[in-house]
């Protein structure tokens, strides 16, 4: 692989395009051609890139360009990163243009979050397809360090090793090799969990629905943000695109959990896409100088004030987590027989089960999926729940009790030591918040 000194980013004015440009210009010390539709948008993307890494010193490394300059930029580049909107036809069109100008040694990658890398690579002549990869960064990349490196059937193995090394050592990414499948590993597991939480909210609409489920699956269950609040940040339209991609293009054993509830379509049609439109599943309003949180009530199809739910076992868990008593907190959950505790246990067991099912199919090892969920989602690694649930045997028993598939990674375990093995490099405890 050539030393990466010049990079072209196509679609630099998108959130991911500018953020990744910031990473490449700073850590990578590379010259970055920033291609946007207009020179003004390209200039704006340079400012955004500087802001992502909080340094004006990288300004001179970035050059504003438009699509008119694409040929010249690509022909000079060691790496071309296409980061246009998540639209197959659009990406394919761009790839055809890139193919006209890149050399036999140019690395080309797409910033897709789940489209087929193999199909996208077919815009290139056969001899160039080996240079084509998916590089799925997570947002915002300065804070979320995961990069899923997607290999297609055409991708060259030695080149992937060199690219992985570059992404890890120079750009400080946590790189996990994933196979070319819908949503790859992180979004596959993450959106399964989130969408099933949505489906649970629909089932539980009489108990409160959205905010009820979020209060149960909050930060104390090992994530920075409750799952349904996360949808508002992602955007309801993006959520829909991702789950539908998995639903339509995979033969997933949990396919039914990727079905989008109808009320999400209704919210999208009403223009309530999440934070970017000022409201989605939640809305905020100032009432008498106080910020009030409203939530979409599935039962009435209206927004109402969000409730403060309180469950004794959850309060006890949060208190224990405050003083870092992780095992005791999860013993409280395991021993509680309430309906709410059972919802949490089912959700966590499903998360563990589904994550471990990715091993050998989408990622190579259990550690891979743990890294993906920590560095990409800011969620607790799935493996650690096996330890918190009393070890492999107890977890298998619980999975059977809760009707969750037992993955072969778990049933095949011989060593009965801690199941989570990355503690020296990833301290799992930070993901359990007392909130």
């Amino acid at each position: 692989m050539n030393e990466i000194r010049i990079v072209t980013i196509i679609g630099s004015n998108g959130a991911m395009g500018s953020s990744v440009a910031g990473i490449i210009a700073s850590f990578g010390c590379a010259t970055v051609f920033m291609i946007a539709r207009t020179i003004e948008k390209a200039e704006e993307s340079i400012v955004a890139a500087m802001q992502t890494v909080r340094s004006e010193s990288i300004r001179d490394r970035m050059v504003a360009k438009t699509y008119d300059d694409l040929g010249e930029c690509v022909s000079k580049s060691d790496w071309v990163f296409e980061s246009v909107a998540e639209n197959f036809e659009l990406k394919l069109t761009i790839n055809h243009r890139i193919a006209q100008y890149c050399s036999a040694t140019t690395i080309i990658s797409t910033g897709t979050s789940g489209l087929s890398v193999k199909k996208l690579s077919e815009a290139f002549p056969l001899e160039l397809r080996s240079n084509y990869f998916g590089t799925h960064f997570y947002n915002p990349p300065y804070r979320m360090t995961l990069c899923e490196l997607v290999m297609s059937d055409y991708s060259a193995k030695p080149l992937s090793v060199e690219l992985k090394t570059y992404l890890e050592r120079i750009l400080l990414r946590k790189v996990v090799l994933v196979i070319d499948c819908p949503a790859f590993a992180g979004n596959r597991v993450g959106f399964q969990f989130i969408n099933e939480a949505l489906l649970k909210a629909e089932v539980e609409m009489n108990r409160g629905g959205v905010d009820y489920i979020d209060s149960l699956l909050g930060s104390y269950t090992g994530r920075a943000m409750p799952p349904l609040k996360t949808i508002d940040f992602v955007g309801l339209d993006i959520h829909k695109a991702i789950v539908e991609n998995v639903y339509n293009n995979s033969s997933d054993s949990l396919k039914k959990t990727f079905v989008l509830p109808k009320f999400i379509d209704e919210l999208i049609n009403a223009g309530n896409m999440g934070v970017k439109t000022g409201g989605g599943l939640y809305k905020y309003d100032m009432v008498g100088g106080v910020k009030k949180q409203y939530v979409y009530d599935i039962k009435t199809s209206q927004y109402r004030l969000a409730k403060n739910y309180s469950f004794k076992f959850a309060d006890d868990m949060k208190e224990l987590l405050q003083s870092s008593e992780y095992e005791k907190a999860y013993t409280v959950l395991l021993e509680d027989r309430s309906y709410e505790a059972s919802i949490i246990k089912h959700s966590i067991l499903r998360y563990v089960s589904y994550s471990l099912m990715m091993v050998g199919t989408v990622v190579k090892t259990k550690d891979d999926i743990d890294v993906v969920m920590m560095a990409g989602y800011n969620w607790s690694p799935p493996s650690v729940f096996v330890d918190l649930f009393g070890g492999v045997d107890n977890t298998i028993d619980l999975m059977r009790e809760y009707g969750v598939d037992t993955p072969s990674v778990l049933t095949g375990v011989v060593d009965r030591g801690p199941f989570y093995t990355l503690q020296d490099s990833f301290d799992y405890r930070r993901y359990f918040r007392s909130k």
Partner: protein
Amino acid sequence: MNRVYIIGGDQTDFERNWHKEGKNFVGMLREVVVDTLSRTGLSFKNISDLNRENRIAAFIGNFDGEQYFNQGHLGSFLTEIDDSFFGVPSARYEAACASGSVALDSAITKISSGVYDVSLVVGIELMKTVDAKTGGNFLGTAAFYDKEAKGIDFPFPKIFGHLADEIVRKYSLNESRFLDNLAEISCINYENGKKNPKAQTRNWFMGKGHACRRGDNSNILVGGKLAVSDCSQITDGAAGVVLCSSRYALEYCKYRNLEINKMPYVKGWGHRVAPVTFRRKIEESEDCSYILKWTRQAVLDAYRRASLGVDNIDLFETHDCFTSSEYAAISAFGVTEPGEEYKAIENGVIAFDGIKPINPSGGLIGCGHPVGASGVRMFLDLYKQISGKAGGYQVPSAMNALMLNIGGSATTNYVFIVGR
């Protein structure tokens, strides 16, 4: 005096924000104690057994628990972690940013004098409980508050900005070359921090171009010539180590089939206190070639006690609260003559692969600065280096290492030498 061995220890991940996690001081103490014991292979039962014979004590270094999290009497809180600490003699030790070192000093003294066989030393600070400006005001109490900090936003960057001014004046340095040297110090620390999996800044960007652009919007000036890139960043964090006597070290090694001659031990120490205000320090040092004469003296004391000199030291961990303090430390260690520190920076002497690497861990700038924990964190890093357990930031074949931990504006100066 008995030899004091180091069995091991651990630190928390300095990237973590405990306030955001909703966790308290007891949680941090629990994690660092559990991890420290786990690294050393000691159990709570071992603690109970040692305590039955009054052979163990604990020493908690902390600067400002009262202000940051409204809690004093921190020495008593090990009893919240496990019942085995009931009855274990323990207390909190304070000397501003050198709180960890004063705790270490007390632990070392109690072992070397034969009072106890085992000491658990913890440095701990929770700082993200308040905003930066409030925290800066709290830190002002490490100076002479009424004279140097009251009513001043971020007093310490300004004090160490004065140190930078004084270095330029005293040694008649070219200012732009000096500032370039300080930028290089910053870059080395950030670069080293990237090798340390528990460093606060391991994923942060720093480059010479950025460090030299002092005064732009992304690197604002905070104290005279010094900009944000010249500062260590406060953080939440704790570090713990277990020290022991020769008697216990023999028991420990025998039980684990280890060789005692490979176990790191404390070879020397120095402790000197300078006039509290920065102005008096400078006045007092006017006729001295060293800008921080008591810092230099603490280093000389440690060399003398260890019967070692700078030539014997393979690496340093220094108190780079600001780049100017590391600059002054270079000559205090004897790496160069005073006024010639720039040579060690420009010739790569203090770089990770240089002949006298400073802060392979990343130091306070790269690894982070939870003030009361920093002394113990440095000491832990000396232990890791000497025992070959520093992982990605291991200095090859390190035999002797020296740390300098300062409180206030180099008011309290602590030096330890660890070797094998």
